[in-house]
């Protein structure tokens, strides 16, 4: 018993990820935490997307289930679980059954290497980015087989579109990623790294986020990735595989109930996964903003207080809404519920002020805040951009993003090696 406790506590002093420390207990804890956190994030994303889209279109959005529709995702989940699960008579049963699981597995497995902080990752791999890109590209297999197994026209066309789209945009995405890998090798040993934690640490060592590196090269790479990742996750304005006006619901037309909800879960967790790649590669991962302009221990303290104040601010807004609830007795339960939710947020905010918690959790906060920014962008795109036509989509992928990516890669290499190249040239001129 004592040995077991010592085994559990020994990790806390090691300052490593559980995978690197080889600690099975903490690895399991981290896996569970990531799984639960991801599920909550998907549920919250569902509610936020409907609310934000509604407000963009001057509607109210869900208002009936719970105060301001807060319990709507739970009601939706219950409905989906209780719905009849239909498998079409002419469908290929086994493939139809397997396809959603491929998509979900691919979407969740990539979170093994996502670095929420220098020690807050399930594990760190030597091939981190490669692993994330590779495993997330497996989800297209699930989409293709889902469309084929349904044995119906709309899903088949949706699957064909999505496979063509995802394979095309993977190329541009890969080129943008390689330009960042080049930037990580700019140190004394000139050895780059593919590890997710290593990439953030090299941004820390170079005192620069890679989005600002070799301005505007880093920015262009980020832009290519930001476009390609929307296409990779089949979201608006690139949501042709599930274009409602043309294909009903695309590859998951024939799916219902729990199986459909697996596709939904996978889509949103894939969005979070590609956003966290973008955050890690270009936006400094878990690093706090303005490390150069506002250095010093005082600013460190100020920035470490921001997570707590953010939650207190959210709690304050909730209390304001509680005060503005209608005073009719029918709304009493909802008012109490909203107040309780505000109290919960305030409690989280107060816990985040405890020094021990504050130091260990602020990395996670900054990482999640940056990813949340991307999630908002996804909703914003959906609210503003019209859908691309398929030929336009292919034109953007192959004729704009791919040549730009190639030029970017060559330019980054030239700029990164400029001193060596100049030295070589001088040597060649003076034999």
């Amino acid at each position: 018993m004592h040995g077991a406790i010592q085994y559990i506590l020994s990790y806390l002093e090691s300052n490593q990820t559980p995978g690197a420390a080889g600690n099975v207990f903490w690895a399991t804890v981290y896996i569970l935490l990531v799984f639960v956190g991801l599920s909550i994030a998907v549920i919250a994303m569902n509610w936020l997307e409907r609310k934000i889209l509604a407000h963009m279109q001057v509607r109210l959005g869900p208002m009936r289930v719970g105060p301001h529709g807060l319990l709507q995702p739970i009601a939706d989940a219950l409905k989906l679980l209780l719905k009849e699960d239909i498998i079409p008579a002419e469908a290929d049963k086994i493939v139809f059954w397997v396809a959603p699981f491929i998509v979900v597995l691919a979407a969740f497995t990539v979170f093994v290497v996502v670095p929420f902080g220098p020690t807050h990752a399930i594990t760190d791999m030597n091939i981190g980015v490669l692993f994330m890109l590779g495993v997330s590209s497996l989800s297209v297999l699930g989409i293709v087989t889902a469309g084929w197994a349904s044995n119906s026209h709309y899903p088949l066309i949706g699957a064909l579109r999505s496979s063509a789209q995802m394979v095309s945009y993977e190329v541009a995405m890969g080129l943008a990623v390689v330009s960042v890998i080049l930037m990580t090798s700019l140190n004394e040993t000139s050895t780059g790294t593919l590890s997710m934690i290593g990439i953030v640490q090299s941004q820390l060592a170079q005192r620069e986020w890679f989005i600002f590196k070799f301005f505007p090269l880093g920015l262009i790479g980020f832009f290519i990735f930001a476009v390609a990742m929307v296409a990779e996750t089949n979201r608006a304005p690139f949501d042709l595989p599930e274009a409602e006006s043309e294909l009903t619901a695309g590859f998951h037309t024939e799916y219902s109930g729990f199986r459909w909800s697996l596709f939904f879960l996978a889509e949103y967790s894939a969005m979070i996964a590609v956003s966290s790649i973008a955050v890690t590669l270009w936006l400094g991962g878990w690093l706090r903003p303005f490390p150069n302009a506002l250095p010093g221990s005082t600013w460190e303290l100020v920035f470490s207080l921001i997570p707590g104040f953010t939650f207190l601010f959210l709690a304050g807004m909730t209390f304001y809404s509680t005060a503005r609830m209608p005073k009719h007795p029918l709304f009493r339960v909802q008012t109490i519920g909203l107040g309780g939710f505000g109290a919960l947020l305030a409690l989280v905010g107060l816990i985040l002020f405890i020094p021990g918690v504050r130091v260990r959790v602020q990395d996670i906060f900054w990482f999640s805040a940056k990813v949340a920014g991307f999630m908002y962008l996804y909703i914003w795109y959906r609210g503003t951009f019209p859908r691309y036509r398929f030929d336009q989509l292919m034109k953007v992928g192959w004729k704009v993003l791919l040549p730009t990516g190639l030029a970017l890669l060559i330019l980054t290499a030239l700029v990164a090696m400029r001193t060596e190249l100049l030295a070589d040239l001088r040597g060649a001129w003076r034999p």
Partner: protein
Amino acid sequence: MNPATVPANPPVATPFFFYLLAAIMIIGGILVITRRNAVHSAMALITTLLAQAALYLMLYAPFVAGVQIILYAGGIMVLFLFVIMLISIERTQKERQFNKQWLVGIAAAAALGGLFIAVYTTRTGGRTLFPEGRLTYLEGENTQRVAALLFDRATGTYMFAFEIASLLLLVAIIGAVVMAKKRI
């Protein structure tokens, strides 16, 4: 459960995982050639390729494993499925599958298997051809080692072979374009 007795990184390359992955690969390979439905065959092939990637991981070569997943499972097999999906399954299931070279195939497979067994059991001076101890490489540097073998000015010996192989692929691509287009 004393931390002193727990090794820092227990090896993943245990015989159990090797036999598990090998069994998955063999079953997958058999399914690829026995399924009548081409999509089922393709999915069995994907399973085999993923198990193969896991075998590379067991050899402490994570970079090769990652490239295997990206290129084969994520790239080539998607294109395979893309083509297979458009085949009429009803017609292919009615047609008789035949293979006129099964006798030669069995002979070749048996010869290869026999060769493997012969190499594995040969002893010269009481030693097999395989090293006794288990070689453990630094897993954390695999990508960098591969890069050094390819591109380093001092140790890079495989650059030429690598470029020749990529030229071969380029020839195949050009050939496909020439065959597909009547006028270029």
